[in-house]
């Protein structure tokens, strides 16, 4: 039994190290709240969300848009400046609280984790190509393939 446990643990370590070595922090920039835009796929019919609804969606507590379409949430890494600024300024929560909320959903059968995206360029591609998706980027990355969700 102990050998099996040891072997499983070593495998876990290996996977973690491999995953780690492929992990690159997102491009760090100094981004203020005003420069961050919430974006959605163009098929989403909602164009405005208040902070509480935005929070419910990004905390993964609400699984559909108000019109019933499934929401697909995309986020940047926890240590990305744009993520921290988005969490603090747009959601008014700290990144560690958001992470804890996701962990509690994922490991209690009450929800799913958001999709992780490494860079803002990938974020833009993912939002443009996924129906019902929502994410956020620095305004300078914005283009016409996605729509902006404004504050209510």
């Amino acid at each position: 039994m102990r050998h099996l446990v040891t072997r499983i643990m070593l495998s876990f370590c290996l996977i973690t190290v491999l995953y780690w070595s492929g992990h690159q922090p997102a491009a760090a920039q100094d981004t203020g709240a005003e420069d961050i835009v919430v974006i959605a796929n163009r098929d989403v019919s909602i164009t405005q969300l208040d902070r509480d609804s935005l929070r419910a969606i990004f905390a993964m507590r609400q699984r559909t848009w108000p019109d019933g379409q499934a929401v697909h949430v995309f986020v940047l890494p926890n240590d990305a400046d744009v993520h921290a600024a988005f969490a603090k300024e747009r959601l008014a929560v700290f990144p560690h609280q958001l992470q804890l909320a996701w962990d509690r959903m994922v490991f209690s059968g009450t929800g799913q984790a958001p999709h992780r995206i490494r860079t803002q360029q990938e974020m833009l591609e993912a939002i443009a190509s996924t129906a019902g998706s929502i994410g956020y980027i620095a305004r300078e990355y914005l283009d016409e393939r996605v729509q902006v969700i404004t504050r209510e």
Partner: protein
Amino acid sequence: MNASKSSPGNRLAGRSLALACLAGTPPALADSTMLDTLQVHGFLSQAYIVTDENNFFGTSSDGNGSWDFTELGLNASIRPTENLLVAAQVLSRRAGEGDDGDPRLDYGVVDWQMVNQQDRTIGAQFGRFKNPFGFYNQTRDVAFTRPSILLPQSIYFDRTRSLALAADGASVYYEERLDNGLLRTQFGVGRAQVDDDVEYAIGLDSFPGGFEADTSAIGQIRYEHDGGRMVFALSTASVHADYDSPGQVPGDGELAFQPWILSAQYNAEYWSLTAEYALRDVELRGFDAFADEQNRGESWYVQYTRRFLDDWQWMVRYDSLVNDRDDRDGSKYEASGRGPAHSQFADDLTVGLQWQPHPNLMFAGEYHHVDGTGWLPAEDNPDPDDASRRWDMWLFQMSLRF
């Protein structure tokens, strides 16, 4: 939301849709099939425990310490339709003599969100659902969601954990988004899990009979203010189990357990202050071998956690347990010849440190200075008279998740 009809974004979206139709092709969207929503996650923790007196999760006091605390979990979830979530987790937990690591279904639910509006969500879970009990119960076996290696034992006993874990039945939840606040109510009815740990705790482990869970209810009201800066919760449950005795001794009987937990937390950017207070009514009735028994236990803790240097956190906590409020120091219990007084209480001062060098890897260490053996696992310490009242414990743990 009326304003949205005329917003530029919507007009733009409409125009792009019109353009796409003119071009004769649907918008280039990835087909989001059901399989795309499949997620698999897991965790693994291994601890090393050393005590100077008494055993906690294995032979921790024999000088070599104990490696007998391993938590391994694997879960999968999928969204077959917009408002359905199907999720299940298998847990293997090895914890000294009390838990042998046999994999078991931790939860398995179909979650249906029937109402989803801007300011409210209403849903229901069917199957084996995790009990919303205090702040930590639903993910109590996942190290990454715990502030310390051991949760405060006065409320989250590992000694009789099966009762609180999960229930087989149905639960409804209602979430209302208020002005800068969130109100979440959950109520469930189902069959609790009653394992051998309950018999051990009550002292019926030497008899051939066993408990069978009866219908139980659990409810929680939780309010989160300002994105979780302040969180308050009130949880209660009414858990019932029937004892089936094949022989005359101790005879058939009933166990009723009704806890109330009041929880409060303040979260700042770099620190959190958490406190929970619980009253626990335990009743044993109908047994032939002893008179009906009823007592009220009291538990509380206060905990301060501080984050520093991005991926470090330290914590300090004072945790207190009294099995019977009418016999706080256990003297009546001892006088009645049932066991040592110190088995009726426990005061635990804990300091701990966590380091998360990577989001999926965590190292933790902590020290407990304990007065009392109220939550000492009975399975690891068969004779309560051999236990020492004052004891110290060190724990170290490595945890992984994906």
